[in-house]
């Protein structure tokens, strides 16, 4: 039985995270072999969507978790400790619009307000607020790239790793908001009550 419960994100950070846990001596074979199982009692691993990781860790349903900085920025009100920048899974949070003349800038200038589609409404709203521009944030759940191509919006705020998806849809990056990497987060109470176990893990982490 593991002493710590660790929330592991499925998706883009999944394999890198399991590789890291392997190096820390946490057995992940069972997790790799099971696509549908969610809770692994032996290793203490629970798997979930990256955006659910802060929810479990804040409530103490998991002691530690790994998720992207993008998720933490979007859920900045959560009571969590952000312990370590793990360095992998590097992406950029960007403002993008259709290639050619920047329609977002044109809307800003001529209509006063730019419409922005995103899965990150708070990051997007904060970015435009801090840069002194009025924006109407349109929250979408699926492919954000579609929104400016159909005229729903003039620009998007989204996470991009290589830029391939943007390029293939004829979009170009106009601004960079932040560089996001995987982060190790902790429940604040667990960080106090299970200090020795967590610090042991952090020591092994800085050694690998």
């Amino acid at each position: 039985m593991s002493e710590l419960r660790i929330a592991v994100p499925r998706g883009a950070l999944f394999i890198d995270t399991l590789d890291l846990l392997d190096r820390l001596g946490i057995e992940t074979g069972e997790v790799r072999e099971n696509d549908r199982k969610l809770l692994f009692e032996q290793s203490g691993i629970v798997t979930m969507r990256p955006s659910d990781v802060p929810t479990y860790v804040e409530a103490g349903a998991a002691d530690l978790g790994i998720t992207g900085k993008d998720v933490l920025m979007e859920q900045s009100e959560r009571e969590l400790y952000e312990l370590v920048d793990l360095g992998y899974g590097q992406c950029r949070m960007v403002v993008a619009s259709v290639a050619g003349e920047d329609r977002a800038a044109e809307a800003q200038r001529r209509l006063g307000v730019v419409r922005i589609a995103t899965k990150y409404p708070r990051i997007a709203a904060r970015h435009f607020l801090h840069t002194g521009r009025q924006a109407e944030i349109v929250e979408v759940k699926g492919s954000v790239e579609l929104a400016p191509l159909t005229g729903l919006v003039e620009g998007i705020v989204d996470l991009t790793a290589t830029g391939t998806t943007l390029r293939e849809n004829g979009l170009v990056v106009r601004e960079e908001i932040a560089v996001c990497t995987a982060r190790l987060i902790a429940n604040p109470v667990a960080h106090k009550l299970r200090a020795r176990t967590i610090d042991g893990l952090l020591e092994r982490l800085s050694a690998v």
Partner: protein
Amino acid sequence: MSGIDRAGDPNGAIDRIPNGTRDVLPDEMRELRAMTDRIRAVFEHAGYGEVYTPALEYEGTFERADTAGTRPAYRMFDEQGKVLVLRPDMTIPIARLVATRYPHAEPPLRFCYMAHAYRGVRPQRGQAREFLQAGVELIGSPAPEGTAEALGVLCASLDAAGLDSYSIGLGDASLYPSLLEAVGVPPPSRERILTELVDGDFVGVEREVHELGLSGDESRLLLSVPRTRGGPEVLEGLSGALHDAVGGMREVHARLSPRVAQRLIFDLGLVRSLGYYTGAVFQVYDPAYGVPIGSGGRYDELLGSFGRPLPAVGFALNVERLHIALTGEERGRAPRGAR
């Protein structure tokens, strides 16, 4: 149709209450009442007289103190157009009470309360916008004696509530700021580092510290201190500015009974967002619940802003969270394996 005819309520408001508030029904109420009765008996036995102050106060009362983090969230006007607020905590109302009702009384003064406070939080379990606090304020008793007394009462009330596995984190609000000053960090950077620390962003602290261009030893000191927590051994073997900075914690520890001392986690990184804390700060943890159950600390400057300069210390337990932790302990965390 029996009961409330919902279709007949044009606003649909009859079955709704404000977000973040809730009704308490008899089964829960009996358990809460039994718990608060036991806690109240501990407070009274220790010499703390119960007081009640108005839920509504003038806004100006709360502007006298640095309440960063718990500013009043709910305001209204009285019949003369004055701004009233629902109190966000009980410490400031009791500071006002001491200054106005006991201007000449010989300290120390001991008060306790079971009262609701109001904050504009993001509602979730254990985080209500109206919440019941059980707490004490010890006025006119300086560190370390007063702090040790408050910690003793805190442990006795948690024991009486029936909690088994709790721990109390003890830190010092002045520790990290004084360390930053001793190392010569300029004030604007100090603010930024403290903000990251209050946010629990250790990656941000590291980034800010690295930008200062300090010596390797100084950087290591500033990065290791916020992560240092454990038994009394964390107060030993220190040198220089850090040795001096934990002096207050060592003095408190020396005055605690073994029963209290065994509950403590010495936490050099414990910082509270409340601006009025000056020295010792504490927080109550239980393994059965992922959020702190209560908190407190010294506020030696607060009474002065009400014209009655006296050192003071106090704590407040969140009764609903205490109940959740108690229930969690009883249930045992069945699926979580050997702990």
